[in-house]
């Protein structure tokens, strides 16, 4: 029988501490299984958020040995169990209880992004035509499961707490998905520059590194958006060109 020791953060908004739990490790287990086992055996009140247990819902985000991870997709056989394994809540957002954090800010931010606004239908029956190659990029962004690990690891949110000025990588990806949608007609560049603070991102790519869906957040979403913003607002030649010929972007 193999056992492992887990140091799990227990506490609430007022504070807390790591507590040690030993549990048996069996073949194929993921960290979430260990947490559930501990919950059933010795800590009935251990709070953890989870749902699908298959990496599809993005509920069980936490930090395992300091790394932001989905608990359900972190296999025990990828972790050194000779040493105690630490599990703590994600840090960018306020702690509620144990491994559960208050991520409600993210839901509020999303509402501030202008919604999808399609062009009139292409066909008489009210439907549209889009080529697969034109939607590939958007489909990559739409794989996002909203686990908020990218938000957690972004230093603008995590270390500098710029939640008033910056929407974070998740919502830059969301904006990119809308902006690059072949049917969308909305203009979100001014919001990106001002209210949504895209300039705060200095492309350290930590978000891309932790994304469980392997979305190339920085290269495919954020940088093209930055370029669009720069083109619109900071390119003197284009600015002049636009003024002279009245052409948008």
């Amino acid at each position: 029988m193999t056992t492992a020791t887990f140091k799990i953060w227990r506490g609430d908004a007022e504070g807390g501490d790591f507590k040690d739990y030993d549990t048996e490790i069996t073949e194929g287990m993921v960290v979430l299984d260990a947490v559930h086992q501990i919950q059933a055996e010795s800590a009935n009140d251990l709070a953890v958020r989870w749902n699908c247990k298959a990496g599809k819902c993005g509920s069980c985000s936490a930090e395992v040995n300091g790394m932001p991870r989905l608990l359900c997709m972190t296999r025990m056989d990828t972790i050194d169990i000779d040493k105690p394994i630490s599990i703590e809540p994600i840090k960018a957002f306020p702690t509620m209880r144990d491994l559960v954090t208050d991520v409600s800010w993210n839901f509020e931010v999303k509402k501030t992004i202008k919604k999808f606004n399609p062009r009139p239908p292409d066909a008489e029956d009210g439907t549209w035509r889009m080529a697969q190659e034109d939607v590939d990029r958007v489909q990559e962004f739409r794989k996002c499961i909203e686990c908020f690990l990218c938000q957690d690891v972004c230093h603008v949110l995590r270390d500098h707490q710029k939640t008033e000025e910056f929407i974070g990588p998740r919502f830059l990806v969301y904006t990119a998905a809308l902006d690059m949608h072949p049917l969308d007609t909305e203009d979100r560049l001014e919001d990106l520059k001002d209210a949504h603070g895209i300039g705060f991102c200095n492309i350290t790519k930590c978000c891309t590194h932790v994304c469980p869906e392997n979305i190339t957040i920085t290269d495919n979403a954020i940088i093209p958006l930055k370029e669009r913003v720069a083109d619109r607002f900071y390119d003197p030649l284009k600015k002049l060109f636009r003024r002279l010929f009245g052409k948008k972007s």
Partner: protein
Amino acid sequence: MDSYKTFEYDVLVIGAGGAGLRASIEASAAGISVGLVCKSLLGKAHTVMAEGGIAAALSNVDDRDDWKTHFADTMRGGQYVNNYRMAELHAQEAPERVHELEAWGAVFDRTGDQKILQRNFGGHKYPRLAHVGDRTGLEMIRTLQDHGIHQGIDVHMECTIIRLLKEGDRVTAAFGYDRERGKFRLFKARAIVLATGGYGRAYKITSNSWEYTGDGHSLAYDAGADLIDMEYLQFHPTGMVWPPSVRGILVTEGVRGEGGVLRNSEGNRFMFDDIPDLYKDQTADNPEEGWIYTQGDKEARRPPELLTRDHVARCIIREIREGRGSPHGGVFLDIAWIREKLPNAPEHIKRKLPSMYHQFKELANLDITEEPMEVGPTTHYAMGGIRVDGDTQMSTVQGLFAAGECAGGMHGANRLGGNSLSDLLVFGKRAGEYAAEFAKENGATGVDDSAIADTIQWALAPIERQEAEGSGESPYQIQYDLQDTMQELVGIVRTQEEMDQAVEKIAALKQRADQAAAPGNREFYPGWDTALDLHNLLTISEAVARAAARRQESRGAHFREDYPDKDEEWGKTSLVVKKGGDGTMEVSREPVMDIPAELQAIIEENR
């Protein structure tokens, strides 16, 4: 008495998966106030797990398809005991609901001529499932969520409803608690829509998440509503079987739709061995014909792997029982073999089935482009549910509506893959529309304070029980024991003796649940949640066991070893479960709805 916070809405929707979100959007579009309560965070509901696609006769890939064929396929799949009106409306309205999703920003995979691509699935005559790789559910829930947040819907996340309150025959409020803080909440409403999904957590091996505890079924039953078809529970033929911790997690039917085949330990494609008469004309009799069908040959017939789920699950059980299973008690599902047919097979598989590739790679350390998967049946979907009017989705209780998996009738004895997502959209919309209409036509009502006091006392009992030193039992243990009971005694293959035993065991578990104790505080407290969920799980388990014990024939997902054949008389009978006057459960026989002549003609044309 513990305090509670009161909210008031015209329409309250309980559950924020596909059906609940669609209902909320529709109700709020009617210009009334809408509250939406969900057990998890918004966008995490079980709809995200749906993989294969949304069935709708768009006729983008095969122009022979139309709603009539979809209707006939749904009725055949359901063994003709479906609520025909729901099957009819579903087939007619699904295309419009899918196009609407596109208008709200969904990005489906495309055909060569830039329309929505459709794929093959079990029991569907033509390629019919609009999809996004194998993550269609995520696309659907995110589209509804992102559209819904701009509609002014008041969302209560991480909140559980534990009781519906009535005045006379009419539902007037829902009472629950917010899981984050453990505080009680009262939601007064002129109409309530239940969209709570199923009850797979009553079983040990299931594709369902912790939320699936039959809340809506049980809330409606306790409020006096009829449940129908409770004996029909779908076991999806392909769940993961190894490693143990992922046992039950879904492997999409899309694998078979893309050419994946089932084999036993002898390498035999056993699905060719048993093709039901109802499907003989539509099913390929050799591997080559099956393969070319999956690659779009319109003249070819479906491979037997794409027979209905009830049948495929039983064939798998047969192989395992007769000693031809895989090392970990399943059978082999092989998509890697298509390398023999396609030069770029690994890339093709990763493109068509990205999350299956990811899931097996990450959780089982297995590359599905190289090796076969091991799969076995997993508890997946409740065909049975709250009895509703096909047009309005109102239950037998005034002002109480139900949509999606928690509503019964639409799928009859067996649901076709892909018909669930379309069901959520079609009937979510209808429930929202008619709940809004009901709310407009019927004024506000009162709430019975003594019922609230009773509910609070009941809900706090597990916590108080613990405070009395040494009393009470862990709710987790009771749940495990229930899961074992249902898995062993009311599973895929059923017998009278086993189900009678199950009914007795459930009664004993109920007594233990009344003594469940949850040590700890009330904030985000899983032990307390589990203790309260037990009531729902046990109520629904009893309904399933009693209905299944009563139906002495085999039909669709309900297979009786002691009555292995279909029975004509039973084919005209539905079973209805209801709470009797003395509080005990009553099961009664009622005639299956008569199918009107014009719909019967459609069924005959498509035989």
